[in-house]
């Protein structure tokens, strides 16, 4: 097994490819209001920030994959008329990976953190949850590409647990209100939801280390999103819930300890899988080159 994982292609290549295709599809097919200039600026700023942080933290190698993935996520979700704000969001996203860490692990998914921070700080940015409508073909496409990504990074459990929990929240609410099933089905046929489930909450660097922990976390995020959307009546419940509940991940990891995820060795986190002493290497004060390489590739 060790041999197989060592020769496996980094799953983030798939992710970069899948997200790039979807960004282009959205721009040209759905005519998103985001301009190509803004896409270029967001990606360029994300890469530049990654490079700067690589130098500041003296990491041995510049790895653009994670920064690209975060940047592409922003291209999907962030809307603004002001290019400077798009650039600022990209800086926040990448810098958060380096600054906001707990025991060597990210606290927040960079894209999610940057979006929520900008929504809170500025009234000139917004997220359009309905921008893809409920076009079935598009949903299918995202699911397919997303499924590919999560399967290859061994974190599909959190995605499926989240989708199941969120479906339960929506169906349960409809049943309680006596609404026709067309309503929760419509709410589930949402491109933004699939992007969130397959490309954001599945972030292996910020989700709990064990399968049980991830399922618990996914259920909590779904409940939180329901609270934001149907009790507080605020939009973007998924983003807010995920951001707020991310701070519980260290606690969940403490209660349900497992093996830390590394891109070079994607495992599900079960203690029987992988190498038992692996986590201690991450915590070393002066990481050897191999561990430092992972830090450079730190999450997305």
């Amino acid at each position, binding site marked *: 097994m060790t041999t197989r994982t060592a020769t496996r292609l980094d799953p983030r290549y798939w992710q970069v490819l899948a997200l790039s295709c979807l960004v282009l599809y959205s721009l040209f097919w759905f*005519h998103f*209001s985001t301009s190509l200039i803004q896409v270029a600026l967001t990606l360029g700023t994300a890469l530049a920030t990654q490079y700067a942080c690589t130098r500041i933290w003296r990491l041995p190698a510049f790895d653009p994959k994670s920064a690209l993935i975060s940047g592409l996520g922003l291209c999907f979700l962030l*809307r*603004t*008329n002001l290019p400077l704000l798009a650039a600022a969001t990209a800086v926040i996203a990448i810098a958060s990976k380096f600054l906001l860490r707990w025991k060597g692990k990210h606290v927040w998914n960079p894209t999610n953190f940057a979006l929520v921070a900008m929504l809170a700080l*500025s*009234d*000139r*940015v*917004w997220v*359009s*949850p*309905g*921008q*893809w*409508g*409920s*076009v079935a073909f598009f949903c299918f496409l995202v699911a397919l590409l997303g499924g590919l990504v999560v399967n290859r990074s061994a974190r599909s459990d959190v995605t499926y647990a989240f989708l199941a929990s969120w479906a339960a929240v929506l169906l349960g609410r409809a049943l*309680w*209100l*006596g*609404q*026709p099933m*067309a*309503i929760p*089905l*419509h*709410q589930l046929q*949402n491109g933004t939801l699939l992007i969130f489930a397959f490309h954001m909450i599945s972030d292996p660097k910020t989700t709990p280390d064990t399968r049980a922990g991830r399922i618990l976390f996914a259920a909590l995020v779904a409940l939180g999103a329901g609270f934001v959307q149907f009790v*507080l*009546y*605020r*939009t973007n419940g998924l983003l807010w819930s995920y951001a707020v509940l991310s701070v519980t991940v260290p606690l969940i990891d403490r209660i349900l300890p497992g093996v830390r995820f590394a891109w070079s060795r994607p495992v599900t986190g079960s203690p029987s899988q992988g190498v038992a002493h692996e986590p201690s290497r991450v915590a070393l004060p002066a990481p050897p080159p191999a561990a430092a390489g992972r830090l450079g590739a730190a999450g997305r």
Partner: protein
Amino acid sequence: MNRVAWPFLLLPLLLLAVWAPPAASFCGFYVARGDAKIFNKASKVVLVRDDDRTVLTMANDFKGDPKEFAIVVPVPTVLQKGQIHVGDKAPIDHLDAYTAPRLVEYFDPDPCQVAYREEMRVAAPQAGMSKMSRDAARERSLGVRVEARYTVGEYDIVILSAKQSGGLETWLHENGYTIPRGASRVLAGYIKQDMKFFVAKVNLKEQAKLGFSYLRPIQVAFESPKFILPIRLGMVNADGPQELFVFALTKNGRVETTNYRTVRLPSDAEVPTFVKDEFSDFYRAMFTEQVRKERGEAVFLEYAWDMGWCDPCAADPLSAEELRQLGVWWVGSGETPRSGRAPSIMPGGAQPVFVTRLHVRYDRAHFPEDLVLQQTGDRSNFQGRFVIRHPWKGDAECRGAEDYRRQLRERRSREAETLSDLTGWPLDRIRRKMNLASDNSMPDDNLRWWDRIWAN
């Protein structure tokens, strides 16, 4: 017995309509030249929104017997008398005309003269002008509570809360409203979400006293995080798609739906000159075609404009007085808008208001849930605008004229295709109407050999 004018429920939106005389009577939106009816069964709603404050204006042009008129609208809170107002329809008609898709016309200059002369006129579709107390014990037994009763203007208004839809349905029946089958289930959902019900009927005595020949728009102001337009009640017994225009007035930026796709209407396309004479037909066909292309699932943005920065304004903008009538509480009150711009520095007539016009054609199959809205930070301007260019008709004898005529032929051919694409009208018919064959504008591969013989 009072019956509710179903369509009026204006909002199909909000409403819970209680029964609908067939095909009726309300139908808010006529655009026109020559009184052409543009959209039947249309409702107009003005939404003024900032933070959690909302002012909702429901307009109607109900023309039937006022006795027959009533609406039931779910609202988030119990409304005090001061939160209800009966307004004037003129500002709504003005807002409608101000934001309507428009046609702009240009005249080609003499191709033999270097200097350009351009003339521009704007043709926008013109909006057509467009027993009180029940036994308390009985109400208790039904689980219905009359939270308040008011007479405002020509309307008798009751604010109800209910514990269960059966009781509410019975109460409405006993008070002269006929509820369409299926409404009870929809009502139940609103009751569980702790919504109240705003029920209005016409007070004939008051109406006679006031002397209005039409029913004026009802306005309500409330504070709630809910930013939704309940359309489900309006679809309970609708016999086809309904048309809704939402005019949102905000401080910060454009309004969009979060649970449906909001799509911009095509804009700035060049269309054949004959469209000028049938712009209403064009608008209706174009809208229908766009709905079809979006599989009937989208909400359309027809206009988005920062009224604080049009100097000069392209059309006659709404005055501060009109905006206040529509419920824009921050205009003219000295309250500084969030953007920090003070009203006093606005250029002539401009106001610190962002206006959004949304147009949606909905039915149960494609719009299963109520519209959920959000205010975005988007302050970019957009208008549904179409362009016609009149060819130069004068003499032109020079080398440039030859080029001009060639470009003109290409242009007219392109215009025909654009129009066909926008409206779904058959290309052949458009070409015939433009008489394309006569000036050789039609690409050769589209011509049959006999088309040029008589040029008809």
